[in-house]
């Protein structure tokens, strides 16, 4: 039995966990400002956060919120934890940032720290490093949030050798951003703060549309 034990959603400068709003900032705050405020609100110290691009910061924070009040990291075998993320824009915003730094041949100083984020699956790497997760991972690019794709692939890896998974959607483009992360386990978790919803397309669509 595959269960969703927690989920977090970040959009419109607000964060919800399991459907309950937990943090928000000014509506006119920029994405970098919002992410910085959300990071401070979590009272964690992870200096590498500040080096990440916006997509990685967004995925990192959404995962941290989803993990709050769960025993997901401590209770699961992280060598068997999969990470399955998707989005639409790939790493386009950072790609553009890098392109901008090499447009002018007379002022040609591409940043290595920007260049390393010109792949969407780096956001998976940041999560894996943060939580020492070494299971299978995949990053999919689809036109829009695709519950069918995420559920199908997650079930596949859980049927194979994974016993838990961090899944979701982490999207940053010029005009909009959104992150939706849900945690899946194959066994019942005894932590009373977690929710139990069966992993299927209908449930994932419902909780995605809930907030």
């Amino acid at each position, binding site marked *: 039995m595959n269960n969703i034990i927690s989920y977090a959603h970040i959009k419109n400068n607000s964060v919800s966990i399991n459907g309950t709003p937990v943090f928000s900032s000014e509506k006119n705050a920029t994405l970098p400002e919002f992410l910085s405020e959300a990071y401070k609100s979590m009272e964690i110290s992870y200096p590498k956060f500040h080096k990440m691009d916006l997509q990685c910061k967004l995925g990192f924070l959404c995962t941290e919120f989803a993990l709050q009040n769960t025993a997901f990291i401590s209770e699961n075998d992280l060598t068997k934890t999969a990470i399955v993320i998707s989005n639409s824009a790939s790493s386009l915003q950072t790609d553009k940032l890098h392109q901008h730094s090499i447009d002018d041949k007379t002022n040609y*100083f591409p940043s290595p720290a920007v260049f390393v984020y010109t792949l969407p699956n780096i956001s998976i790497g940041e999560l894996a490093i943060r939580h020492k997760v070494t299971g299978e991972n995949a990053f999919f690019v689809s036109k829009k949030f695709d519950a069918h794709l995420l559920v199908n692939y997650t079930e596949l890896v859980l049927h194979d050798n994974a016993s838990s998974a961090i899944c979701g959607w982490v999207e940053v483009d010029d005009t909009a951003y959104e992150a939706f992360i849900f945690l899946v386990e194959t066994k019942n978790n005894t932590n009373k703060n977690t929710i139990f919803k069966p992993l299927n397309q209908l449930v994932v669509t419902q909780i995605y549309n809930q907030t």
Partner: protein
Amino acid sequence: MDALIEKLKGQIIEQLNLAEVKPEEINPDSPLFGDGLGLDSIDALELIVLLEKHYGIKIEDPKDGKTIFQSLRTMAEYIKANGKS
């Protein structure tokens, strides 16, 4: 030299996104990598870009980096000896 070290502190914090580090917390003689500021390999590349962008210094031999980027002070000394501005 002290003024250059202070300037470098600000540039390094900005270029390397060390948002949780204050200039006064950086000891000019502490190692930049490992136990000191805890910089990584990407940061090393950023420091090379910083030298070229702000001081017109191009490090031709990567092996030199180990000596130049030992600490903030060694970096400042190298800039003073080789910089264009």
